[in-house]
């Protein structure tokens, strides 16, 4: 179980030192997802192996259903494990103002059980809550509940956006919430850091060795305004990226800047905006992110646009998303891909949904990445 020791100890000591009646409530979510890359193409011969650290290889053209835990659907292989998962969340209330939340998720992608969340919560007043521990990094609109498929219209949020190697942080945050008329306003300010030893995404998809990655000195915030029809969200975060390759137990910095010079402690700014509409039977979702590493003249733009229609228990969504990297110092090594998707969702029972999605990804990276692929996937998703 991967859990920051401090976060775990903090949570456990709060629970054990309570000595008073604890009100506990549990909830959960799960999905059983099957997918198959039906066909694909690449510049060279097909199929090929994507280069990764020893012991990891994927037959491509392939489709990454989940970058965080590297849930990859290999070429013409019907697979259940890349995205199937089950999560259990426990909320423990010690006093009307003090509670702890733990969320544990078991995933097929890397056969792991991890504590996605483990934090304590203190309600300062009706509008303000202070939290400390480990939480998911709220960079995107659906970040917090990315694994609760039941709560969003597609089978998965677009992986052209929802795909960074660090997706949680250990730290503290202040959560503000208020209602004016039929609008709800939320603000969140956080500080923290996250260290990832043997980072799966970087080691299995981008590098050929083990990679240890740390995002330090995180300072970020988001504000969100929503009513029954519209929701708007803006987010900003600054962090310092530290990356090492680890070969035969020896760590060496691996990021480069001008003239292939080795750099480390690279500053990174993350900007995001999201705008969604739910009007009568119509749905619209849009999200744009811009990531900037000025000291190495490296930027990334990610965007996703979807439109859909809901009739009774059925809904259909059409989406397009794109990820594009720009690098002054390695213009022939940049990553770029776009995905067009068609989703069908059937809410056949309360708390359960069946989804079928067809995705077509076009890989325009300047290096051999995952290739062009056509994925058909189906998922049974529920909350309990």
């Amino acid at each position: 179980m991967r859990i920051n020791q401090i976060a775990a100890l903090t949570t456990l000591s709060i629970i054990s030192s309570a000595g008073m009646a604890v009100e506990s409530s549990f909830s959960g979510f799960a999905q059983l997802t099957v997918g198959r890359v039906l066909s694909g193409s690449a510049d060279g011969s097909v199929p090929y192996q994507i280069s990764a650290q020893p012991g990891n290889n994927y037959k491509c053209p392939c489709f990454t259903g989940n970058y965080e835990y590297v849930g990859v659907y290999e070429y013409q292989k019907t697979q259940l494990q890349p995205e199937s998962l089950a999560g259990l969340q426990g909320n423990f209330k010690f006093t009307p103002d003090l509670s702890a939340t733990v969320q544990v998720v078991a995933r097929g992608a890397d056969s792991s059980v991890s504590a996605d969340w483990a934090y304590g919560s203190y309600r300062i007043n009706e509008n303000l809550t202070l939290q400390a521990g480990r939480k998911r990094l709220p960079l995107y609109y659906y970040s917090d509940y990315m694994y609760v498929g039941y709560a969003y219209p597609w089978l998965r949020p677009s992986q052209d956006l929802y795909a960074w190697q660090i997706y949680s942080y250990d730290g503290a945050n202040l959560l503000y919430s208020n209602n004016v008329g039929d609008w709800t306003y939320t603000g969140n300010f956080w500080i923290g850091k996250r260290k990832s030893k043997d980072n799966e995404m970087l080691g299995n998809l981008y590098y050929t060795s083990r990679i240890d990655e740390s995002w330090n000195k995180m300072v970020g915030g988001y504000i969100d305004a929503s009513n029954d029809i519209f929701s708007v969200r803006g987010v900003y975060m600054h962090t310092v990226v530290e990356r090492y390759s680890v070969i035969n137990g020896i760590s060496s910095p691996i990021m480069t800047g001008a003239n292939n010079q080795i750099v480390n402690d690279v500053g990174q700014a993350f900007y995001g905006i999201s705008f969604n509409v739910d009007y009568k039977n119509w749905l619209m979702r849009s999200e744009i992110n811009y990531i900037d590493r000025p000291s190495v003249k490296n930027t990334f733009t990610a965007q996703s646009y979807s439109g859909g229609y809901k009739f009774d228990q059925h809904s259909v969504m059409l989406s397009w998303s794109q990820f594009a990297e720009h690098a002054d110092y390695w213009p022939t090594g940049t990553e770029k891909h776009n995905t067009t998707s068609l989703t069908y969702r059937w809410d056949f029972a309360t708390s359960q949904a069946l989804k079928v999605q067809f995705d077509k990804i076009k890989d325009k990276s300047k290096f051999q990445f995952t290739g062009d692929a056509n994925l058909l996937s189906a998922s049974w998703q529920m909350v309990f």
Partner: protein
Amino acid sequence: MQKFIIRLALASTCLLAGLVTAAEIVVVVNPKNPATRMFSEQASQFFLGKSTMFVPLDQAEKSQIRADFYQRLAGKDISQVKAAWAKIIFTGKGVMPAELHSTAEVKKAIANDINAIGYIEKSAVDDSVKVILTLP
């Protein structure tokens, strides 16, 4: 005999009228709760997780009163309410309302908690609760 028949006719008409009209639902709180009247938009904040000022109480998941309540309060069916709550629960912003199994249980819980807010049939109102909203 005639008086009896007239009374019986009147009684039957009232009974039939009662069966045909859908039960009116009211939102209630503890009589000592300072809240007075409330609009549907305000009440829905407590039942859809947007405000934690009061402690919301739900009726049984598959009960008709629960389905009718959310439809009349916010025009939402139970799937939509579940989806709205999934977002709140799985972002750690709140927990689902406690589920009680009858109007009697709701009234008892309200009597025990000055911050509780629940919904019951209008016909079940007595002086153990205060009505702050009658749903259209």
